[in-house]
């Protein structure tokens, strides 16, 4: 069973292509069950969105443009957890 700490190391590493399929599935399953880890993954996603927004000059207080930016992130390393 995947532990929270392990998951955090995997997702912070940010290179899922380098992670075996079995582990990637384990990440997904773990995220279904663990709210803390979901919050952690979201915080990493938000960091990427913020970083791109910052460097593209989008003010963080512009939620619509940020939402569009979020949707345009085609290379998101870990599964989105909107549902």
């Amino acid at each position, binding site marked *: 069973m995947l*532990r*929270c*700490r*392990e998951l*955090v*190391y995997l997702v*912070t*590493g*940010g*290179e899922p292509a380098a992670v075996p399929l079995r582990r990637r599935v384990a990440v997904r399953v773990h995220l279904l069950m663990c*709210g*803390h*880890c*979901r*919050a*952690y993954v*979201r*915080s*990493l996603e*938000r*960091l*990427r*969105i*913020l*970083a*791109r*927004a*910052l*460097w*593209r000059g989008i*003010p*963080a*207080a512009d*939620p619509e443009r*940020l*939402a569009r930016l*979020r949707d345009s992130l085609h*290379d998101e390393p870990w599964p989105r957890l909107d549902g």
Partner: protein
Amino acid sequence: MAESQVLWRAARAAGLGEADAEEVVQETLLVFLRRFDDFDRSASLRTWLYGILRNKIRELRRAGAREQAMADVESALDARFDSTGRWIRPPRRPDAALALDQAGDWLNECLKRLPERYRFAFFLREAEGRGTGEVCKILGVTANNLGVILFRARAALRECLEAKGIHGSSDATL
């Protein structure tokens, strides 16, 4: 030049090791060469050089402290889990409204705490979306090194933003 000997001794006296002393003296001389025209000839050259040296030593120490902080990122992360790998200190819930207004400024502040190569690696990979192979080439590091650099940069930035109250919510717009 004799002044460089004097500067080197001063840097050593300030507690720097040989390699660091050499680096700050070199940097000081470069500033001297670049800004020689600004030098007020009626003032003491040595005092001017000492002033530059002091700034360079301060910069080096700040960079050293930033590097050290990055080496501690893993232990800070580990401290959030118990011995079985479960959360002791889970991600904090943010104040979403506040976060939206300030998030950009805060990220900027957090980025300033990173050593330069961490910031650059993070920028190339996350903001520019460049491939790892390309980033390795640009920075002149191995894939393993880059992995460590990016891991630490993300963990440090995430932690820094969380401390400012941004991360963890399930429903914020960001």
